[in-house]
């Protein structure tokens, strides 16, 4: 469903402009607030809705197949590591869901540059970074023999 922005909540911070994968959240030059410039290129991915610090962005189902009166609201809390959803049906019923989003601290992934420098031999092998250890198997990286690949219909 395409997004729209509530005039009284948006403060024009631009987080949605920065995150939108489709480049369709722009700042209106007159009102200095964000709006969806191209609803027909909106994937309803909710990236902007989740990123908005003012909860100013919502979605209204695509007019060509979604009847009015519904809502799907979201609250993404990075510190808590959760995402919460509230679905409201056209007839008023609702459903709520909460899921984890991350099990580690944001920013905690080490750079591969911090790892031990790989050897010349490793450079020429078929193994990728963290292998074979990260495969959690014994016997090393699996491989085919060249003669296992043949040209015929199977």
């Amino acid at each position, binding site marked *: *469903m395409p997004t729209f922005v509530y005039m009284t909540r948006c403060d024009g911070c631009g987080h949605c402009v*920065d995150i939108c*994968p*489709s*480049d369709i959240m722009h700042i209106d030059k007159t009102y200095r607030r964000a709006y969806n410039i191209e609803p*027909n*290129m*909106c*994937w*309803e991915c*909710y*990236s902007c809705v989740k990123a908005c610090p003012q909860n100013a962005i919502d*979605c209204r*189902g695509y007019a*060509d*197949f*979604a009847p009015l*009166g*519904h809502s*799907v609201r*979201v609250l993404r809390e990075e510190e808590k590591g959760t*995402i919460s*959803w509230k*679905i*409201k*049906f*056209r007839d008023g*019923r609702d*459903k709520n869901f909460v*899921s984890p*989003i*991350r*099990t*580690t*601290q944001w920013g*905690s*992934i*080490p*750079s*591969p*540059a911090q*790892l031990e420098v*790989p050897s010349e031999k490793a450079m020429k092998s078929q193994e*990728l970074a*963290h292998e074979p250890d*990260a*495969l*959690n*198997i014994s016997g090393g*990286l*699996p*491989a*085919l*023999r*060249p003669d*296992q*690949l*043949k*040209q015929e219909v*199977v």
Partner: protein
Amino acid sequence: MGLFSRRKTIHVDSDVLVVGGGMAGCGATYESRYWGRDLKIICVEKANIERSGAVAQGLYAINCYMGMQWDENRPEDHVRYARNDLMGLVREDLGYDIARHVDSTVHKFEEWGLPIMRDPETGRYQREGKWQIMIHGESFKPIVAEAARKAATEVYNRIMVTHLLMDESKPNRVGGAVGFNVRTGDFYVFRAKVVIVCAGGASHIYKPRAVGEGMGRTWYAPWSSASAYALPILAGAKMTQMENRIVLTRFKDGYGPVGAYFLHLKTYTENAYGEEYESKWYDHTKELVGDYIDRHPVPTCLRNHAFLEEMKAGRGPIRMVTKEAFQDPHKETVGWENFLGMTIGQAVVWASQNIDPKHINPELTTSEPYVMGSHATCSGAWASGPSDYAPDEYQWGYNRMMTVEGLFGAGDTIGGSAHKFSSGSFTEGRIAAKAAVNYINDLRNEQPKVSERQYEDLKQEIFKPLETYQVGRNEIVAGTVSPSYLLPISGLQRLEKIMDEYVGGISSHYTTNEPLLTRGLELLGMLREDLNYLGAEDLHQLQRAWELRHRLLASESVTHHTMFRTETRWPGYYYRADHPKLDDQDWHCFTLSRYDRKSSEWEMEKAPVYHIVD
């Protein structure tokens, strides 16, 4: 160049240039740093890598995981599965290569913080199906992007790469890429020793079922604009299996995924009258494809085929029987969270139409076609295979190097390696990056030569739609209709209509033939000429203009490939009505094309398929 002569040109030289920061691009960036500690590694992305590519919205499953640590599957099992699903034709060397590495990728994802569900009884990852594991993947992309950002020398967001540059000191060698910043309008010249194309596949080359405001509700992201194909095609790289477009059976209107429903929730389909229908079409399908229909699991395209035939017979809508499964509260939660994690729009459709699958069996539909290299399909560039076992015909240098020297690819870009999905695309990025670093080390200090002339000519071409618009706009009072320019949306809709009507889209039940394809090519040719008159009002529209050009090139490629393969290999994906049967005698092979930039001609050829036979 008149109006825009004062436009800033920014030069960025690097060793490794990764084009596109989705799953494959993040994998390539990460791995480049591991093997190339002193290298300058640049990742360029059209949007913002925090939420870009097909996984921007999140995922609820990782569809490619072997589980070798628990003896669940071996890489060769996955090769056989992908081959079976693609009706015999996959690059088994590439598929095996991804399968043998993919588990280490997934284990890193978990270590980095991706919540992977566990089976409470076995303690292993929760399986959705034989190859799929279930995740809470709302932040899948931000997590993976964090790893890439830590690894890159610099990530350039909001730069649309339009063309690759060629090395002028050596024929058929890549030298970098050019593009423009969608916010500032600056022109970027990236000179690099290797380029790894990790851009997106193609949505919106066929007319979508949704119209008007809902046009963006395509199954694949609307920002997947075929750069994965256009960039290598323009550089003269050989492409393979471009006819192998994919059609998805999905929940109606929202295109919500069905994988978890079939595999984990054990829901099933029935026609409007409550009948099982797939078995009814068995004999008919066997007539077309022979014993491929007897394989297990039944290939995705053949299941689509039964669905389509049942619809054509007037017994639609086809529904997913959810009422039984959804009585279990756990399954109900999984069913909804599955959408909220990756296709929120489907939850919206159901909420808006009062569809609670606990009480109503929801409708299914088949989507418009898409071109991609990472799902149950394998369009893309023809790439060199792994050096330890790939047959000679699949090996001409470094792993995942295309037929252009120094040009690598991964994810949607690389053809023949179906069923890689998110984890496999990241893994393929890693594979390509290690090979690319080896290539750089072997080059020593050799630098690609890119003349000012080369990139200045491209600059003129890239920004031309802004000028065309400004000049033409003064001719008319107001509105969108001009005799002097075509807006990107108008060009896009013409492209979608041509592909739909002539190259096997929804309106013809995915059916085409040689006369239709011939006419389609004529119309695509006129569209190509007209795209010289694209008018862009602003930088956002300039991005749309270049996305359209990329989509057109991919579409021409799809049409030539479809014309070349005179059989119907994947009924349910598309039909050659003039060659309705699968023909293993003549077509148990890959189709290859090469586009000549100077003559605008396409050359077609066949390449052999090698199988693991034991």
